[in-house]
């Protein structure tokens, strides 16, 4: 940065957007945004859901046309709007969050798909496709079988295939949309290492991520969007995660430890719990009204442990005690009957029936309790109970008859919570409840968790963010490689120190 020659090179702009706007049917998704990417830089695009990040990517990759009045300068050429082929010709490649791969085609076919895009009747240049794919995999040093079907690869491998495809198309500017969302800690490290290497090869990379620590660790500069407008462009040097979160939300985020000592009234006691290949010798205790955090990277065995507590898969060894009585769940109905509720990580696919009304979703978990003679459910109960929960959890919904899918993400989360709280659980297990939720909404969820605990429910909060656990839990356990390594009380050790242990891989 200090060398003037290098400074000049860095200033060379690959992409320069000035005053770019985009409206969808009267809604302005982007409002006069400026955005520049320099040659060979890693640039982070930060912002909450709905801040305009995806719209920006779609303008640059040619999916949408911007409103008139803005300017797109790409490698020195000015465009009114870009078409997808133009964007590709200018070296822009987007690696979408869903990777956009073909699960039924081979690795080579996915990487070199460009070779079959033109000339329908021409033969497939199999040999050339394999050569292209091999060259790129070799360059990056990955030994993935060229003939393997992509649907059979792990998520991390698929990510690499997606990146290779971008490079095969001669990318000079690579957009990566939430590339780390479904990777384990080690895989994230490998990916970040790869991004760093690509940059040294002269590529510019724009990183879109929710995970602020990653962003700050790897990017040179960060552009923050909020409500479709550009808040500013900042060097990452000297930027803290907290400051970045404040810029993204416009809220002041108050750190704070909420941990408190609760009366020693154990609800759940686990000892020696083992499920081979998933977790081993887990022991912990949970008190009434306590929030217990389990922190660890994806793949640490936390979700598997939760599934066992919820009766979904049986342990090979060990005991589970609820309110002093030994239990052995044959299935999750038994677990629910014993007072355990579980909110899965993927709330959209596993927790809710999206097209169904809010009210029916809430009573779904207690139909057995509501039903009278001949399985008939009195309409009053079907409405009264959900109405009470909507009120109590402050769910914003026009009426109980609105389909859940019309609600915002944060409110959907509340509906799932209501559904499980209606079962009057002793233990509520929340698996990564804030994944994909905006920072603003996250705050609401943390408050809700505390409130539920104050009502006497014991809560297990599974998360991969140390800061989340520290600002919500009374005690926090750290899991890694299937073992529970330690249990700490927030405040007795600092969040930084604990986070250091979690992220030290």
């Amino acid at each position: 940065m200090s060398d003037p020659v290098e400074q000049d090179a860095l200033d060379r702009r690959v992409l320069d957007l000035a005053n770019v706007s985009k409206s969808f049917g009267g809604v302005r998704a982007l409002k006069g945004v400026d955005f520049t990417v320099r040659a060979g830089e890693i640039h982070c695009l930060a912002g909450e859901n709905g801040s305009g990040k995806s719209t920006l990517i779609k303008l640059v990759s040619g999916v949408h046309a911007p409103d008139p009045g803005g300017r797109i300068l790409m490698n020195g050429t000015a465009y009114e709007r870009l078409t997808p082929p133009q964007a590709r010709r200018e070296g822009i490649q987007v690696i979408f969050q869903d990777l956009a791969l073909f699960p039924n085609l081979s690795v080579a076919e996915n990487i070199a798909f460009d070779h079959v895009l033109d000339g329908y009747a021409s033969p497939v240049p199999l040999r050339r496709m394999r050569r292209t794919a091999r060259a790129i995999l070799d360059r990056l040093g990955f030994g993935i079988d060229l003939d393997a079907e992509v649907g059979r690869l792990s998520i991390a491998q698929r990510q690499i295939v997606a990146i290779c495809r971008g490079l095969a198309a001669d990318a000079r500017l690579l957009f990566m949309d939430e590339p780390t969302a479904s990777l384990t800690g080690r895989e994230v490290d490998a990916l970040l290492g790869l991004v760093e290497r690509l940059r040294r090869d002269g590529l510019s990379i724009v990183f879109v991520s929710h995970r602020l620590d990653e962003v700050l660790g790897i990017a040179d500069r960060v552009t923050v969007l909020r409500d479709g407008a550009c808040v500013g462009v900042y060097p990452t040097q000297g930027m803290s995660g907290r400051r970045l979160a404040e810029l993204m939300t416009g809220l002041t985020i108050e750190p704070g430890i909420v941990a408190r000592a609760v009366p020693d009234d154990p609800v759940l006691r686990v000892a020696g719990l083992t499920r081979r290949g998933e977790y081993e010798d887990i022991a912990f205790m949970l008190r009434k009204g306590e929030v217990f955090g389990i922190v660890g990277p994806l793949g640490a065995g936390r979700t598997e442990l939760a599934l066992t507590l919820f009766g979904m898969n049986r342990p090979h060894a060990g005991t589970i005690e609820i309110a002093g009585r030994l239990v052995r769940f044959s299935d999750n109905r038994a677990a629910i009957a014993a007072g355990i509720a579980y909110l899965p990580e993927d709330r959209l696919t596993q927790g809710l029936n999206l097209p169904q009304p809010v009210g029916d979703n809430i009573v779904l978990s207690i139909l057995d309790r509501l039903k009278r003679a001949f399985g008939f459910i009195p309409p009053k109960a079907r409405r009264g109970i959900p109405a009470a929960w909507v009120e109590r959890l402050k769910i914003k919904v026009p009426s109980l008859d609105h389909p859940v899918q019309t609600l915002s993400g944060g409110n959907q989360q509340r509906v799932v919570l209501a559904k499980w709280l209606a079962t009057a659980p002793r233990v509520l297990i929340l698996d990564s409840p804030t994944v994909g939720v905006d920072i603003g909404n996250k705050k609401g969820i943390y408050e809700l968790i505390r409130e539920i605990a104050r009502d006497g429910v014991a809560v297990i909060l599974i998360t991969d963010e140390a800061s989340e656990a520290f600002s919500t839990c009374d005690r926090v356990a750290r899991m890694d490689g299937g073992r529970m390594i330690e249990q700490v009380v927030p405040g007795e050790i600092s969040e930084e120190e604990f986070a250091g242990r979690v992220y030290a891989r």
Partner: protein
Amino acid sequence: MRGEAGHMATGMLAPVGRWRPGTEVSLALLVLALAAVFGISVPTFLSAANFVDLVESYSVTGILALGVFVVLLAGGIDISFAAIASVAQYVAATLAVTSGWPPLAVIGAGLATGVALSLVNAFLIERMAIPSIIATIATMTAYFSTLMAWTGGRAIYTLPDWWTRRIVFWRHETDGGDIVRIGLPIVLLLVIFAATHLLIGYTRAGRQLRAVGGNAEAARRIGVRIGRVQMIAYGYLGLCAALAGLLQSYRVGQAVPNAMVGSELNVVAAAVLGGASLTGGRGSAAGVMLGILLLAMLQNGLTLLSVPSFHFQTVIGAVLLLALVVISRNERRVLRGTGR
């Protein structure tokens, strides 16, 4: 792993992409087992004459199934092909009988009719964004009822000689005195099989078809023109349907408006039995051929065993169920293997 050499060496039976001992091998084993069972129970089953017979009797179904398979591969489905085949057949027959058109013009007009009607499907599905099953159920009804209204259900019995004259490519008299004839139906079936195999395995259009079937959104983003790919798939099915229609009237010597309607589910079943996934992107032409062979052998074998004809459908239904269970178990295993 296998290189191109390995791929080519497996020859015509190689599914698209790389060779995997999947559905095709299980099916081939099943076909062999069935042949053994029937062969032991009914000695005539294994004769060359009978084999040629049973393949010929399923040639029309086979050509339709190969066409449907291409549409399935691209992630669509079609129910209207039998109606299209009937319309194409009747249009051609009318032109030949009433207008006295020459053979090539009649065949050309028949094929063009099939392609055109099928492209209407593609248009409805792609441009009007109607789900393919809904669109083709609607056009099936529209095409077929229009045909019935137009013809009043009357068949054309007086097809010209050139149309119904037997075309035999190879003829052989066995020691037992049986005459084995490889005629037009089998040859056409093999030609369509080869064409389908080449189309999906070795052309760029075929790769794009498979890409659209595998992940349509991804295909669109990478620059595949989905509309054109759909037109290729449905156009090909239309061509196959028309050809099947003409061939059917060649075999029975007349054009009957409602002769082919009602066979739709058997045809789709044959394609699915051959490993084509209803969710798109999977399967091979060889698998479809084996599926056809299996159904043909079942029907033929049961006939020779004098099983009453209404038991056919029961047995065929049971075999289909069994095959689907096996296929879906395989797919689940794949999905589990790549879990998050």
